[in-house]
């Protein structure tokens, strides 16, 4: 790769008093190249645009400046920090006739891997982490849309995951703009673009973001594409006109309840057939809403808040199959069988809260929104976590993650305190009283 910024050298930028040292190249695409840089002893990333990209997108600098002023909608965006133009003397060091500009952002931590690694089946990741990643994604888009902004070009390529925690980072935020403000020059990524955008009937905005978001969540949850079933099998060469038919002119959701003609193929599309039955109806319903009626009617697509709610409830329903240990998400109050081994699911302890019910399964967490219906769903500050006893995995306890002591009322009426960071066996417990509210154990 030929790098347009001089590796190892320092450049002066109009916007910075200190010089910027180009440490190494991190990667390049058709838009620009990204470098690891150092400014004032701080390690950052610098994206520098290629002339062809700048020529095509005259509003780019305006959008970036607006984003930088507005700051990131939440912590999950790798957001632009500063727009940089080289000084007249540094311009000569840039290996392009038109020196152009770039922007600074934080470096992506090494433990965040590209979402394509997950979809390609190369990542060890739990269903819990994948569902959490989907929640964080919906939450990030919720924050973005609430500000009146839209992303325009979400795809697997600009999403990164931390496999252990399900935390995410959304990169390439340079198309973000006020919804409907400017047609812009980006259309999106085929396969993620809403049909009306692919067909040229609309420009990307918040409504088409909702379609792309649903595609991305579907891909993360199933490792498959929502529109690729029998109709894809009929296509020999998957070229541009074929993609246009599949995603724009003649799209059909592979699990459309009313029309089974595009179901996944049992041999070619096994991922979809294995994973779809894992998820509860509430979640599947949002896909049906977005990919059936919402395919043609953008206003009917599932909203970010609906995704957030459905995903957090799915996480609350999570339990482990006693026969095979796999994570299962049975409908509330339903016996059901394990999707993985087919064993009937055993009854489990449930935790009743003012605003929700959480299964007592290891790693399930209680959050402030479980206690207060007015709080938005958030997974960032758990108040309690269910944990198995280190010596006996059949004993379930709840750990107090708050900073205040709780009181525990036992079945025999006795009351004992539970200090922060301590875990209490749920078997003899009737109720826990916390400053946030009561936790009642249901059997």
């Amino acid at each position, binding site marked *: 790769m030929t790098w347009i910024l001089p590796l190892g050298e320092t450049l002066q930028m109009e916007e910075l008093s200190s010089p910027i040292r180009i440490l190494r190249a991190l990667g390049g695409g058709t838009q620009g190249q990204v470098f690891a840089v150092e400014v004032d002893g701080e390690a950052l990333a610098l994206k520098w645009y290629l002339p062809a*990209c700048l020529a095509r*997108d005259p509003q780019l600098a305006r959008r970036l400046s607006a984003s930088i002023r507005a700051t990131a909608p939440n912590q999950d965006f790798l957001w632009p920090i500063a727009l940089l133009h080289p000084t007249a003397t540094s311009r000569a060091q840039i290996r*392009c006739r038109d020196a152009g500009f770039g922007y600074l952002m934080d470096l992506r931590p090494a433990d965040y891997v590209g979402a394509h*690694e997950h979809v390609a*089946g190369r990542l060890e990741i739990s269903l819990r982490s994948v569902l959490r990643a989907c929640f964080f994604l919906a939450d990030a888009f919720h924050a973005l849309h609430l500000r009146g902004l839209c992303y325009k*070009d979400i795809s697997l390529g600009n999403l990164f995951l931390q496999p252990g925690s399900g935390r995410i980072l959304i990169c390439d935020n340079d198309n973000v703009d006020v919804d409907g403000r400017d047609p812009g020059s980006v259309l999106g990524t085929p396969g993620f673009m809403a049909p009306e955008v692919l067909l040229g009937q609309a420009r990307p905005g918040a409504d088409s973001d909702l379609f792309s978001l649903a595609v991305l969540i579907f891909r993360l949850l199933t490792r498959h594409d929502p529109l690729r079933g029998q109709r894809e099998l009929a296509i020999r060469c998957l070229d*541009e006109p074929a993609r246009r038919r599949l995603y724009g002119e003649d799209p059909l959701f592979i699990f459309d309840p009313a029309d089974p003609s595009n179901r996944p193929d049992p041999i070619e599309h096994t*991922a979809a057939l294995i994973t779809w039955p894992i998820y509860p109806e509430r979640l599947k319903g949002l896909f049906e809403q977005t990919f059936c009626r919402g395919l043609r009617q953008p206003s009917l697509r599932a909203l970010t808040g609906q995704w957030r709610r459905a995903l957090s409830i799915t996480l609350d329903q999570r339990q482990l199959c006693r026969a095979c240990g796999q994570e299962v998400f049975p409908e509330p109050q339903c016996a059901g069988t394990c999707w993985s081994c087919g064993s009937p699911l055993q009854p489990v302890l449930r935790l009743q809260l003012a605003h929700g019910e959480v299964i007592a399964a290891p790693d399930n967490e209680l959050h402030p929104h479980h206690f207060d219906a007015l709080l938005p769903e958030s997974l960032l500050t758990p108040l309690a976590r269910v944990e198995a006893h280190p010596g006996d995995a059949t004993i379930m306890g709840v750990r107090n993650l708050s900073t205040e002591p709780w009181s525990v009322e036992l079945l025999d009426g006795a009351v004992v305190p539970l200090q922060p960071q301590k875990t209490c066996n749920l078997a003899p417990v009737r109720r826990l009283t916390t400053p946030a509210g009561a936790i009642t154990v249901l059997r």
Partner: protein
Amino acid sequence: MPFPNVRLANRPLHFLYLCDCSGSMAAQGKMQALNQAIRQSLPGMTEVARQNPEARLLVRAVRFADQAHWHIAEPTPVEQLSWIDLEAGGVTAMGEALELVAAALQTPPMEERALPPVLVLISDGQPTDDFDRGLRTLLRQPWAQKAVRLAIALGHDADLEVLQQFIGQDPGGSGRSARRPLQAGNATSLAQYIQWASTAVVNAASMPASRMVPSAETAAPGPIPLPDLPPTVLDPTDDVGPLVW
């Protein structure tokens, strides 16, 4: 409790180099420059293949001089590919090379379903055999018609007309275009074009590239919208004229 052991369904993406190994390639280090350019492009190509779970990138190569032969006959996953250097010597059996590729693009051996193949023809001279017959044979194959056909002209003696025939209709207009032969006047630009074909074009053929509002270039008819050509990078050696030939 891992996520089920499944992965996104994928399709093969066949990438074929057609390399001119005629005697003139021995002059001024052109053969070495081409070997180097392909060798250097492999890590980037491997990375692009990893990032595109929908595609299974498979590479082959044909060399042609007095005759055409498979240089890499087996469709090889790029991460397993080790490039064996080509050697120059002989005339330019380009037509025969096209016939060889035509046979490989029949179904079978081609899969029933695939992504558009990418064919990259690299030459520094003029065909010495029946190029027209070779091209006709090639373009009778549906997979060749659907293929992304690119050509790189090395030096000033390359026959731009036959390379244009291989690519298809000239898009018109002026300036550089991926739908015209890419003219590599020195080793740096050769490496850039090889890199571009093996990464940006592979990416576009396997899909996830983000789309911009179509320009005249990207809106031109073809199996896929082609990505921007690499920028003209100012090289410190630019002012001293051609570096290698």
